[in-house]
């Protein structure tokens, strides 16, 4: 389950958000209009009120706290999910028995949205961190696994053949050819998983949480503090953008060579 199409083969910097100034201003204006004309202002805060709420929550420390809680849940779940997903994906791509064993579950449960598991998760792990981390783990592991699996089988045959000509043994083939060749797919999977993780954690925090951005949003909504609610949503969107940019930047630094097209 993936959020957005991969529009280009690699992840060039130009693929990042290109916002024209006019559009942004237009957006804010539209927002202002909508909030004053369409729905009563109490239910649809103006941009100004949202901004004020944002600042207030920052000063109160509420926003950094809740954002931090959500982010830490994402970070831990994402890490564990990657650590499990990559080796498993590699194993499934390389060894038939492993593939045949795990495939029914992978191909079935990838269609079950992570949020659906929140209820069993809080039953097993309580209402605290673990249940949310479990959900993020679930989100991440499938995407990373699937992408890795696809990546392994997409290594060009001639790359393998050449290496065999040069006398590469099984391990050398794996470490020096299959693994580097799969990296772009692994990184794509991780990037998509990161994006989906934000949605998953927010969903989980709507339903069963006492802290986190999702909790902040729904709690504010319950008290009709819509300006705070919108501020929370805005923060969520911004965090998503920042996380994505950060991810790309890290990759560009550390792993640029693995993203080269052939």
């Amino acid at each position: 389950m993936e959020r957005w199409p991969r529009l280009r083969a690699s992840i060039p910097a130009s693929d990042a958000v290109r916002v024209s100034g006019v559009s942004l201003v237009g957006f804010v204006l539209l927002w202002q209009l909508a909030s004053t004309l369409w729905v009563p202002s109490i239910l649809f805060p103006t941009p100004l009120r949202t901004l004020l709420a944002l600042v207030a929550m920052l000063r109160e420390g509420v926003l950094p706290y809740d954002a931090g809680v959500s982010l830490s849940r994402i970070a831990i779940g994402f890490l564990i999910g990657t650590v499990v997903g990559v080796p498993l994906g590699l194993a499934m791509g390389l060894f038939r028995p492993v593939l045949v064993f795990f495939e029914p579950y992978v191909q079935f449960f990838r269609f079950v949205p992570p949020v659906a598991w929140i209820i069993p998760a809080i039953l097993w792990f309580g209402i605290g961190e673990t249940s949310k981390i479990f959900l993020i783990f679930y989100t991440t592991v499938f995407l990373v696994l699937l992408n890795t699996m696809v990546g392994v089988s997409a290594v060009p045959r001639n790359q393998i053949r050449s290496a065999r000509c040069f006398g590469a043994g099984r391990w050398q083939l794996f470490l020096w050819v299959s693994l580097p060749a799969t990296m772009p797919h692994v990184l794509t999977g991780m990037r998509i998983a990161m994006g989906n993780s934000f949605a998953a954690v927010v969903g989980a925090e709507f339903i069963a949480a006492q802290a986190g951005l999702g909790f902040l949003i729904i709690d504010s909504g319950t008290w009709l503090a819509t300006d705070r609610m919108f501020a929370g949503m805005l923060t969520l969107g911004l965090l998503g953008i920042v996380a994505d940019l950060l991810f790309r930047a890290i990759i560009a630094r550390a792993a640029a060579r693995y993203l080269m097209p052939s």
Partner: protein
Amino acid sequence: MTPTGEGRSIRFLGYAASVAVVLLLWQYLSSRAIIPLLFPSPLSTLRVGLGLAAKGQLQADLWASLARILAGFALGSALGVTGGILMGSFRPARLFFEPYLQLLRFLPALAWIPAVMLWLGTGERAKIALLAYTTVFIVALNTMVGVTRVPRNQVRAARSFGAMRGKIFFLVTIPATVGYMLAGMRLAMGNCFMTVVAAELVASDSGLGYLIFSSRQWMQTELAFVGIFVLGLLGLTADHVFQATSSWLLWRYDGASRGRPTQ
């Protein structure tokens, strides 16, 4: 690794064996479990599921979720395709709207649930609106990409045969874009499942999400498992429908192969 007839049946045997092993293990472990509430056995889940089906309850919930998805998805797709075509065909439209698409990518539809429920209540309207929102952006973006990627030479060929703008649009642009539209719709469908389940978990009195939620109320974890399982089946079926449609279109229009979603 092309599946021969023989190879395929071995594969299926392998799947069956794997599933059988896991089911048996599950059954064994849950019979030894500390609290049956925590982890009901497959048999127990099956029993509850069949019971629900017998009462017609399961079908009702399934249909509730499905109906919402279909309505929201249809609405969102219609808007998305229209918007995407406009953006792909007219530069000003694209320049104006594309940033919104790129920005709103990062605000998941889920995040709007509390807001939309404040505005539209907790009934069908709210859910359908959410689903339409979920769908429209992905479909629009994909459609737009499709329109901009119509092979230039196809358009040129049509022009040299004397086709005017309108004809080119319907006979060249649309067929070439259909693959991309489908790709976007397939992705959007997956997200719709996520949104509808979340919305039903937050506030609903029907649907598969509600079914899962009710497991807490009734202290019957089987209900959650049944809901999850049916959800998976539904998602699988939907995806297969899309794949089949894409293959058929691929066969018909040939250029549609470029509109394949990447995972």
